[in-house]
């Protein structure tokens, strides 16, 4: 049964949209539970078994809440902003491969597309900050703009390391190259930079500066309520999922590693199921790492964050790129230098904090 290409894409998009909604609900639940247990609390317990229905309940509550627009807000800007945050993030899901076939469209320029779309939602945040006519929101919006644009560079350069090594922008091909060794081991510095930069891209702790509740009280989101606010939340967790999925694909070997079913061993649905399982485990592991960091770390200050991006991450991502390029030309052994550079990076972080 094959559908015409356009219809097929639409069906896939529809499925992905619903999967994303579901995943977001699950992620919020997991985050609340993980944080609760880190803090020796129980977390949500009442709705359903161990509170599993808490997030759907919250979502319904948010949907039926009144959608307030401040009187002095810039009406259109204010009301449009959540969608401009959500749409680019949702667009990223078009080319994220869950397995070789489970993907809406496997673009040849996949990584380029992802990097391009991952930086677009800053527009929405800035609009939210400006349109709310609120000083906290404005500060938060400007912070978001500064932070997201600065961290775009190290993020892209870190990915570039993978692209140079694998010689492809196609996510499927990149994953298939990792059947033996995942790029995690070949690009340690790249992974580190990617993780740090994407934490900042996602505005998660320790880089949750735009929405810092002890300083700007939720930043751009401060005036939003109900439906629009929940779209922001949806976007936040969807982008967390997307970023973790990308990281799992380009560094952890996606559905291929460590036990890729060889041809003939498993086939059809069983192979797909195994692939998806691996993919989900890896993605979830990364996401839980993010939650774990949230439960542990304080928040950086905006100038330190910018300094960190421009003085640490970007130079080190260049180093990573140079090492990878040299490895492509002179042989893979040079990649070992990446481990040295990682050590250097850790040491530099240590030195910076001691000043």
């Amino acid at each position: 049964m094959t559908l015409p290409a356009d219809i097929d894409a639409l069906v896939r998009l529809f499925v992905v949209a619903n999967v994303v909604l579901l995943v977001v609900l699950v992620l919020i639940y997991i985050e609340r539970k993980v944080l609760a247990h880190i803090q020796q609390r129980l977390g949500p317990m009442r709705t359903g078994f161990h509170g599993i229905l808490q997030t759907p309940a919250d979502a319904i509550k948010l949907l039926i809440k009144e959608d307030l627009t401040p009187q002095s807000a810039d009406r259109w800007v204010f009301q449009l902003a959540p969608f401009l945050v959500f749409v680019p993030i949702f667009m990223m899901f078009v080319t994220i491969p869950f397995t070789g076939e489970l993907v809406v469209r496997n673009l040849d320029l996949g990584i380029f597309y992802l990097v391009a779309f991952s930086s677009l939602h800053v527009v929405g945040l800035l609009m939210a900050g400006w349109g709310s006519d609120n000083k906290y929101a404005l500060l938060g919006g400007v912070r978001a703009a500064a932070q997201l644009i600065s961290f775009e560079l190290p993020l892209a350069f870190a990915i570039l390391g993978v692209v140079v090594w694998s010689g492809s922008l196609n996510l499927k091909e990149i994953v298939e190259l990792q059947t033996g060794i995942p790029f995690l081991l070949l690009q340690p510095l790249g992974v580190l930079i990617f993780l740090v930069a994407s934490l900042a891209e996602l505005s998660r702790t320790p880089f949750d500066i735009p929405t810092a509740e002890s300083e700007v009280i939720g930043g751009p989101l401060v005036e939003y309520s109900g439906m629009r606010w929940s779209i922001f939340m949806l976007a936040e967790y969807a982008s967390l999922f997307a970023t973790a999925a990308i990281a799992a694909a380009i560094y952890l070997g996606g559905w291929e590693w460590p036990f890729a079913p060889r041809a003939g061993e498993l086939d059809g649905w069983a192979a797909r199921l195994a692939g998806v399982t691996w993919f989900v485990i890896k993605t979830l592991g990364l996401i839980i790492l993010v939650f774990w960091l949230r439960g542990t770390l304080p928040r950086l200050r905006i100038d330190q964050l910018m300094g960190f991006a421009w003085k640490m991450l970007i130079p080190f991502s260049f180093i990573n790129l140079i090492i990878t390029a040299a490895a492509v030309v002179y042989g893979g052994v040079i990649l070992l230098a990446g481990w040295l550079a990682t050590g250097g990076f850790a040491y530099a972080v240590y030195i910076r904090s001691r000043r």
Partner: protein
Amino acid sequence: MLGVLKGLVTTWKTHWRAPVTVQYPDERLPLQPRYMGFPGLMWDAEHDEPFCTGCQVCMRYCPTGCMFVEMKDNPKFATGESKRRKIVADFTINLSRCISCSICVEVCNFEAIEMTHHHERAGYYPDQVAGLPTLFQMSADHRAGVGQKPGHETRNLL
């Protein structure tokens, strides 16, 4: 990075410990025997009347002015059933203003009032006024709960 790792290890360890919180209305952390909730009036079972004579000492001392006490002649004194000449006629405590300070207990000369374990008085109206029956009930519940006898060493301290 080392400090961050140290923090991560710490949170990792606590993650596996049992939670210290409980599901509040279903489960409660136990109260200590001396816990001071709201004051209640004790009942003299021997004479089948309250200990309180309505002398208003507690009312005058109460720092928030949340008590109101009235006194009357004790009908049982006339019949000789009781030694109390006067008895409480009306006693109300506005529990939403009470600060559980135990001053009323300490100043009472008749050991008639005690701090009970009642402390959950959240309601829909600003004034949670407890009258005589409630106050007796609170004390009775309290004594049934902790097995405490009337009389306490913290009398007349002020």
